[in-house]
């Protein structure tokens, strides 16, 4: 980061620490004065919401880990003990289990927002790639967390997903052996998944810090997709965006609480309340809802390796988005043609998700195949071609000119900033 001028604080202790370790200056700079484009809408709150979800997951997960036993003969019963006998254990577990779903909802909205407003384009490529890595690590963490209660879907989900790696030539089988710690999904698998499920959220936390650091170098994008040109285009993060994000967080928490308290098992599968049994295969093995579009792509390809490559490729592809999209214009607001294809992609993702929840046969298999083809077609063909052919609408000169009728005033805090400097 660029050299930051130290902030002078009223509290002498804070000043003493800050002159030796400038964490307060850093926080003041990054969270008080950080200039946010004044026209950001509520979709920009989902970054903050996702961050809060990560905190909730780490906090509840820590207390669950204190009561959980990662042995195949104890895991299921220890989870039930949490549900029945641990004080407010049911609350902590339902907050954690539904929290995973809410975390994914927040992250998916966050990602589609970035897609719609072109937030991945220069100069935010590394910010975006860090986001894709966060998404991947999150998926791994969620998958391993779902295995821990050691119910039927835990066991069979783990069996299906770990077996995928065996599709890779040469390295496949050693990877599967490493994941299993034996010859099948069994106690060593559960143990290492627990260890990794505890570790990965902290890896995520580190990645989120990098993600935020990269964001604060080039600043937040905005619905117009044009750069902020000065203080007339921005507001200081605190208090303007803290209170706006705060409101969005509370609304999000209301939806979250509705699930936790009134339909806590709605997003789970009933089979996971049956203890794992390696001798009884469930009629349909389905992953958690947030994996369904990728699961549909996996099953759409009639070849195991091909399916695995399609599934991983669909995520890896996202990392190349800044270079696949050739258009200089960021926001869909000024891209009339791409905007329609954006919505078709969103619908495609929903259809793939539904197809993933159905048995892979008949018309659903066909729909999944068309959906998979379209997903790759969108990113590999439509995006590059549209960037060249599309006639975009003229961009406004500046954010303030576009959003304020009379040019508008400058936010109070924006002026205060230079005066506070020593």
């Amino acid at each position, binding site marked *: 980061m660029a050299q930051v001028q130290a902030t002078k604080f009223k509290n002498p202790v804070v000043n003493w620490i800050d002159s030796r370790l400038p964490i307060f200056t850093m926080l003041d700079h990054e969270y008080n004065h950080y200039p946010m484009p004044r026209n950001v809408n509520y979709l920009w709150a989902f970054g903050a919401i996702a961050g809060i979800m990560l905190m909730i997951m780490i906090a509840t997960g820590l207390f669950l880990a204190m009561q959980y036993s990662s042995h195949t003969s104890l895991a299921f019963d220890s989870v039930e003990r949490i549900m029945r*006998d641990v004080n407010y254990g049911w609350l902590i577990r339902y907050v954690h289990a539904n929290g995973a779903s809410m975390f994914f909802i927040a992250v998916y909205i966050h990602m589609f927002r970035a897609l719609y407003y072109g937030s991945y384009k220069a100069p935010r490529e590394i910010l975006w790639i860090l986001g894709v890595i966060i998404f991947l690590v999150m998926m791994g963490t969620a998958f391993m967390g779902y295995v821990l209660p050691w119910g039927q879907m835990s066991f069979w989900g783990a069996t299906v997903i770990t077996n995928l790696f065996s599709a890779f030539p040469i390295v496949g089988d050693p990877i599967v052996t490493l994941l299993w710690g034996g010859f099948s999904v069994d106690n060593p698998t559960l143990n290492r998944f627990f260890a990794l499920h505890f570790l990965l959220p902290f890896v995520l936390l580190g990645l989120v810090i990098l993600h935020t650091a990269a964001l604060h170098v080039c600043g937040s994008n905005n619905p117009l997709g044009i750069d902020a040109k000065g203080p007339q285009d921005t507001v200081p993060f605190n208090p303007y965006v803290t209170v706006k994000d705060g409101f969005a967080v509370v609304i999000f928490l209301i939806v979250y*609480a509705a699930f936790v308290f*009134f339909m806590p098992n709605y997003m789970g599968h009933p089979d996971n309340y049956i203890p794992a049994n390696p001798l009884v295969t469930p*009629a349909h093995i389905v992953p958690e809802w947030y994996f369904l579009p990728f699961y549909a792509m996996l099953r759409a390809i009639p070849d195991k390796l091909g399916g695995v490559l399609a599934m991983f490729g669909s995520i890896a592809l996202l990392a190349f988005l800044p270079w696949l999209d050739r258009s200089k214009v960021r926001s869909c607001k000024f891209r009339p043609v791409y905007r*329609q294809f954006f919505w078709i992609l969103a619908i495609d993702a929903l259809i793939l998700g539904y197809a993933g929840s159905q048995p892979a046969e008949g018309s659903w298999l066909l729909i999944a195949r068309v959906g998979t083809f379209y997903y790759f077609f969108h990113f590999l063909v439509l995006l590059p071609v549209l960037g060249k052919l599309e006639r975009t609408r003229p961009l406004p000169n500046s954010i303030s000119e576009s959003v304020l009728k009379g040019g508008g005033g400058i936010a*109070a805090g924006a002026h205060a900033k230079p005066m506070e400097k020593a």
Partner: protein
Amino acid sequence: MRALKTAILSAALALGIAGAAQASEGVHIPKQNWPHAGIFGTIDKAAAQRGFQIYKEVCSACHSMRLVPIRTLAGIGFTEDELKGIAAGYEMTAGPNDAGEMFKRPGLPADRFPSPFPNDQAARASNNGALPPDLSLMAKARVGGEDYIYAFLTGFEEPPADVHLMDGMNYNKVFPGHQVGMPNILQPDGVTYADGTKATVEQEAHDVATFLTFVAEPHLDARKQMGVKVILFLLVLAGLMYATKRKLWSTLH
């Protein structure tokens, strides 16, 4: 926008067709009216107590409920003395004692409900090869939950002419595959309710399903009561946040 509309329409059409095909295969499980349903719903304690009576007199001959401590029943209105009495009705194996021997003692409220069979193999051997599932989580472990339990218990009937039942199996209209080892166990007046309620099969199924909902989710009432408070608090907080946001941002325009 036309391309978009066409896409949505065709997608909806495809979903509709496939959805209809799916529905024709599955068994419809009718929804019942449960006093514990909804935001303010609480467990019907009288029904759950009657359900416990059926569990004790009928179900527990074959089905275990191994995750549930007897003291849990305090949640459906049994007093401490009643719980001690219920627990004392079971004989538990404890030990080893100082001589290194296992011994029998009367149950305590802290004990879990004893299982009717020592292991799954013994359960299968006594039940024509079928394994009676544990009931601790039954209301959460089946699609449809308590509605499924009700539909299953009232779903025994004579097999259609084209269905050939395997030896020792019974026909149930909602069980996957329709052939089930469990017999039609609920009979009119099969139990004599302590509270004088008429024991029809529907009443018995309703009471058992209520009881199993309670044992699968003993904190259901506390959860919903807390939920109402949490959501009310969040609604007020959201109102305050929104007012603050409006006031603050109004200075910008």
